[in-house]
């Protein structure tokens, strides 16, 4: 009973303007990167360089979303690494399937 009575009235803390400003800055960065990708899609010749740039920019955006929006950067180190390190397995999947796809291409055409 005591606990319930204690918690029925929560204290509202005032808005932290610095935090809110940081959120909007992150949003601006995400938007700017997307606009840059759009411009590149129409101005640069299609090729490996353009695709590499797209993937780098995408991973960069992913970093902002995970670190700023999902607050993964604010979590303690063991939690941070237990989410990030398993993703290393994907590197092998990427290499293996990219190679497989290239070889199917060789066989087929």
């Amino acid at each position, binding site marked *: 009973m005591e606990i*319930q009575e*204690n*918690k*029925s*009235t*929560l*204290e*509202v*803390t*005032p*808005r*932290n303007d610095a*935090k*809110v400003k940081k*959120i*909007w800055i992150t*949003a601006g960065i*995400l*938007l700017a990167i*997307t606009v840059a*990708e*759009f411009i590149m*899609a*129409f101005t640069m010749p*299609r090729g490996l360089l353009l*695709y590499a740039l*797209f*993937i780098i*920019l*995408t991973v960069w*955006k*992913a970093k902002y*979303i*995970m670190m*700023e*929006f*999902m607050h993964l950067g604010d*979590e*303690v180190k*063991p*939690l941070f690494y*237990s*989410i990030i390190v*398993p*993703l290393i*397995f*994907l590197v092998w*999947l*990427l290499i293996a*399937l*990219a190679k*497989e*796809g*290239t070889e*199917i*291409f060789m066989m*087929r*055409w």
Partner: protein
Amino acid sequence: MSAHSTAIGVSSKRGVWGGGNEPLKASYGKLMMWFFLLSDIFTFAAFLITYLSIRVSYPAYEGPMDAFVGSNEYWPIPELVFDAVPFLHGVHAPLVFVGIMTFILISSSVTMVLAVEAGHRNDRNDVVKWMLWTILGGATFLGCQAWEWSHFIHGSDAGSIMTFVNGLGQNVTETVHGANLMVNEYGPASFANLFFFITGFHGFHVTIGVCLLFLCFYQAAVGIYDQRGHYEMVEKIGLYWHFVDLVWVFVFTLFYLI
């Protein structure tokens, strides 16, 4: 939240991993959401890497851009496939509509993080306000995706002449409009199949996300979180919603840009 549950009478000799404390400084619910999202990252990564693998197994279109015609001999150029906008029939507007969709989803992610921030401050009014904006963004995105699918399935007026094996096992050459799982007017059959499966799976996540957002909005509005004493549910559903945005960033690059 984590501060309440530090056990009483635990010897300091036990160390961080000896039990009786929270080494990851996060609640059970938040941890489980993170590990669920990790498994979901693997699922989506498998889909997207498969897309990449099948894409490199086909030749790219080499000819001039304005002479492009859909063929199952080569992979199509995305900006020539996704070039339609609602209410502007027959206007060539490459990637404009998907750009709007991306903008809507990123915006809803921003309003979500603002709701989480308000939740940290126990500010019910702000949480309700930002949750409502997020629901609006999510629902609009779903509507856009429904239109995008419908347009993709029905196709263009001209269509393309394709040679393929039809449902009766006959090898036919005919004009194809739109897309299904057997054949499509844009490129190889796997192009449409991957589009349906990957954007469909993402859209399914968004649909669940909108339901969760609504649940969270409702519970915040009627004061359940005030009674509970914390707004952690906003944070957990926020994690899920940002993940949906994260996946879209990759879907956008692979399907619409590369």
